[in-house]
């Protein structure tokens, strides 16, 4: 049989045919592969390149250090404390995490609970992520860790930052505090910093108002990461901008004394420079330690803050609303002089009661004051004098005078949440109550009761305006990031010199003339004498019957029903420099503690005279008035 027969030939032919066919099929598959390569690499290559870069490059934010807040002499009121901490990277802990923790425990104190937490954190994170072991170490502990570092594999000493308020509750209503970013704040802001873990932002006060400046701008580090998120190397770095320092007009010395004097009462005090509006002290008590919010408040602490009837969370200076009481009589007096009613020969007889429209309006002094001129009316704070005078002047002129003194609208201080208080008018009452203005309403307003309400900040502004005769407005911030906050020079107050002089004279007599309502609490040091006006604001709502009847003794009442005690003043009497307001809620007692504390603070403030001391920030009198700060103003001249 031949090796190679016909049958072989036919199957060889079939083989060859089909092998060629398969070769064609293989070529087709290769064409598909090549086509797919073309599609992926050339047609869509750019898009995949972007996706690969997205995979590879990750931006790590660098939180800039938060700016400081300082007082006018450079005392740090809020700063960033170094937070010495120890981190542990589990993959570098060659002898195991438990062993590493034991080793750390030999160098610094480490409780079993802390160890447990670290073990848990390490289990929750990838093994190259540094996990905090302990924070807020002392320098001594921290250097001990550093010393033993060669024997502590996986341990990373680290210096973080944490906001610190060295004076605790003393300035809390000025500074506010920082706390974690809320969900809502996160959505409203487009600052990438907000989503940084551990980020703190200002929640109240200056911290909130100037948060963007103090926060700084986020730096970023472009890093190459692998699929597990581990950083391989840094590709580029933008250091960002550190937060800006904010200089306040506060003098911490005066602030400290004010805070001490208020002594945790439900009270408020503000000291202001009458010439340029600088707030030297602004205290609202009780307060709370802003450092609590930084580390995180416990439920009990929060409960304590919200349940306290002295309202520690409320800044009473800007947001507390009170009837001005007799302090408002200064506004009525100004209106009366300006209206030509309270001429030097103008006299009112006070028999102790003023009958109007069938109602009896009582003076605080049951037997009356006898015949009084304007200064005497102020000195004695005679209610009948001001019932009658207000009645003659009319609500329109009183409203106008009150508004010129800055009441009824926000002062514009650099603090969030300021209230405007209320100066009533005919239109206001018609709009609000759908009733016409009554003569009786004018009488109530005439002694600072009824519809009129003010904030302590408005009162100190009022005192400063009376003292200086200028439309000064309070200001708390001198400069941000080295740039002075522009502030126009205060224009002259729209009252005649005669009116101002006579009201000042009345206020002087209140304190410095025998029989004055605050004579007992005057400043006796020569050259530092203070002028002022006391006030008592009724908290109780008097029914018609009660209003006419004798006044119940304050001390017999429950605390919450007692009258508020108010005082405004300025000093020295001649050429005044400082104005003050002090308020003790439900604190109207014969000892006048609110006047005592105002006296003590004003004496100290005058003796120290912070307005004359060289401040830490560059200041020139001309510069303060210029809208664009000192340098620009000089150049423009």
């Amino acid at each position, binding site marked *: *049989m031949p*090796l*190679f027969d016909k*049958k*072989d030939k*036919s*199957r*060889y032919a*079939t*083989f*060859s045919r*089909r*092998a060629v066919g*398969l*070769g064609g099929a*293989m*070529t087709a*598959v*290769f064409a*598909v*592969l*090549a086509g*797919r*390569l*073309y599609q*992926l*690499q*050339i047609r*869509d*290559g*750019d*898009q*995949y*390149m972007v*996706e*690969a*870069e997205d*995979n*590879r490059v990750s931006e790590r934010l660098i939180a800039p250090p938060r700016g400081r807040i300082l007082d006018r002499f450079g005392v740090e009121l809020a700063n960033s404390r170094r937070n010495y901490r120890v981190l542990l990277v589990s993959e570098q802990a060659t002898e195991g995490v438990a062993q590493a923790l034991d080793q750390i425990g030999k160098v610094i104190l480490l409780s079993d609970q802390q160890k447990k937490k670290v073990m848990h954190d390490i289990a929750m994170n990838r093994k190259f992520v540094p996990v905090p072991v302990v924070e807020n170490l002392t320098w001594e502990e921290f250097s001990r860790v550093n010393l033993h570092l060669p024997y502590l594999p996986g341990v990373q000493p680290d210096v973080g930052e944490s906001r610190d308020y060295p004076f605790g509750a003393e300035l809390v209503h000025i500074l506010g505090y920082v706390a974690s970013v809320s969900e809502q704040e996160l959505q409203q802001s487009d600052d990438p910093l907000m989503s940084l873990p551990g980020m703190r932002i200002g929640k109240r006060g200056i911290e909130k108002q100037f948060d963007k400046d103090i926060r700084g701008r986020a730096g970023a580090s472009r890093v*190459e*990461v*692998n*699929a*597990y998120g581990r950083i*391989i190397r840094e590709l580029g770095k933008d250091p960002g901008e550190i937060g800006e320092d904010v200089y306040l007009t506060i003098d911490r010395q005066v602030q400290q004394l004010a805070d001490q004097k208020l002594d945790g009462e439900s009270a408020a005090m503000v000291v202001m420079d009458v010439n340029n509006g600088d707030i030297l002290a602004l205290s609202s008590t009780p307060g709370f330690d802003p450092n609590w919010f930084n580390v995180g408040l416990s439920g009990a602490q929060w409960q304590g803050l919200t349940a306290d009837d002295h309202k520690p969370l409320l800044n009473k200076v800007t947001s507390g609303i009170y009837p001005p009481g007799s302090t408002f009589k200064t506004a009525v007096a100004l209106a009366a002089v300006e209206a030509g009613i309270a001429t030097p020969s103008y006299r009112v007889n006070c028999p102790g009661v003023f009958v109007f429209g069938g109602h009896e309006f009582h003076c605080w002094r049951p037997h009356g004051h006898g015949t009084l001129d304007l200064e005497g009316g102020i000195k004695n704070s005679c209610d009948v004098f001001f019932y009658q005078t207000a009645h003659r002047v009319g609500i329109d002129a009183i409203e106008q005078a009150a508004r010129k003194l800055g009441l009824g609208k926000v002062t514009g201080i650099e603090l969030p949440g300021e209230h405007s208080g209320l100066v009533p008018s005919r239109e206001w009452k018609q709009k609000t109550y759908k009733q016409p203005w009554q003569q009786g309403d004018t009488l109530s307003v005439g002694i600072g009761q009824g519809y009129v309400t003010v904030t302590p900040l408005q009162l100190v502004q009022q005192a400063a305006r009376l003292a200086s005769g200028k439309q000064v407005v309070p200001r708390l911030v001198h400069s941000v990031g080295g740039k002075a906050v522009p502030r126009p020079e205060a224009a002259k107050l729209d009252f005649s010199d005669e009116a101002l002089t006579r009201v000042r004279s009345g206020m002087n007599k209140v304190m410095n003339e025998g029989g004055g309502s605050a004579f007992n609490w005057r400043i006796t040091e020569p050259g530092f004498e203070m002028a002022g006006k006391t006030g008592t604001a009724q908290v109780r709502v008097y029914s018609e019957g009660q209003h006419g009847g004798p006044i119940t003794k304050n001390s017999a009442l429950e605390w919450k029903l007692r009258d508020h005690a108010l005082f405004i003043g300025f000093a020295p009497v001649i050429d005044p420099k400082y104005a003050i307001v002090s308020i003790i809620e439900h604190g109207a007692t014969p000892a006048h503690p609110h006047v005592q504390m105002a006296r003590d603070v004003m004496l100290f403030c005058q003796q120290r005279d912070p307005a004359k001391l060289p401040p830490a920030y560059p200041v020139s009198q001309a510069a303060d008035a210029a809208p664009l700060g000192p340098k620009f103003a000089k150049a423009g001249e």
Partner: protein
Amino acid sequence: MVLRPYAAAKRTLSFADKLLEVNWGLVLLIALIASAGIAMLYSVAGGHFQPWALKQIAHFALGLVVLVLASVIDVRVWMSLAYPAYGVALLLLVAVDVAGHVGLGAQRWIALGPLDLQPSELMKIALVLALSRFLHGKNIEDVSRPGPLAIGLGMIAIPAVFVVLQPNLGTTLIIVMDGCSLLFLAGLSWWWILPTLGGVAAAAPLAWRFVLHDYQKARVETFIHPEADALGKGWNITQAKIAIGSGGVAGKGFLNGTQSRLNFLPESQTDFIWTSFCEEFGFVGAMALLVLFAVVIFYGVQTAMSARSQFGRLLAMGIILNFFFYIMVNGLMVMGLIPVVGIPMPLLSYGGSAMLTVMLGFGILMSVHIHRQVEIPRHSGGII
């Protein structure tokens, strides 16, 4: 190609003749492709010879020895060894189910000294050998007769069943494709082929329901909707496409493939090495490599066509088809055209077992080439 036709024409060739007859050009081509693989292993290890590149060099060196040794063995000896090899491969395949250890959720290895032997790899060569020998003795009419056809199909089915049980769907597919291609080349009637293809198409939904493992189904589902689960099961395909695509025309350059270096590509040293290559060398490099593969395959087909024995023809064609199927399945898989099945890229992917079997295959192919003039009687069983 044909260096010295007179030498090949001789009935018996001396050892020296055979060494001269080895197509060293092809060996060079293979070495070139393997070098590209080794370079990529060096790259995906972040520019280090450890843990893969150095070992792969050893694998390849051993593979070269295997290639040369296999090539000088007479094609008739291979014929004699066909059935025993098939038997041994089958035994080993059974053994992995019993003694093999578990890796990647599938039992596939037998520890053989420093090598992890994958019997399923060996089986592909053994099946091609055995089927070629079986079909060598069959005329066209015989191939299509129920008896011989049943035996042929059985020879394919038995190892296929064991491999699919491992479970290893990719290798099963290749074994079936290898076997069926040989039946087709041996002249199987279209009357069998066309109805069978129709039947397979009809049975696919049933297989989906009853045969496929959950993880295999998941792969198919992931393939159809990779974006639906881009961070989970679709990760492999998505990242592989990004890697290839981001290579662009010229590639990112050697050692600069970010996707593989930063671990975005899974198993970049084995199944996805081609992806890394495409990333670093771009469209130009990938096409060049495809051309090299195509040349190797063309050589294989040419060897098959020029062999005088039906055994040699079937053997050469079977081996080169096996090589091709690897490239096809791996290439289509990593480029997102078919679901992910665990098939390495021949000569490129890391792995001793795969490298040795591929080189053994080329050795046998070379043997067919050297002994292309050898005629083997239809009823011969080899020369041992």
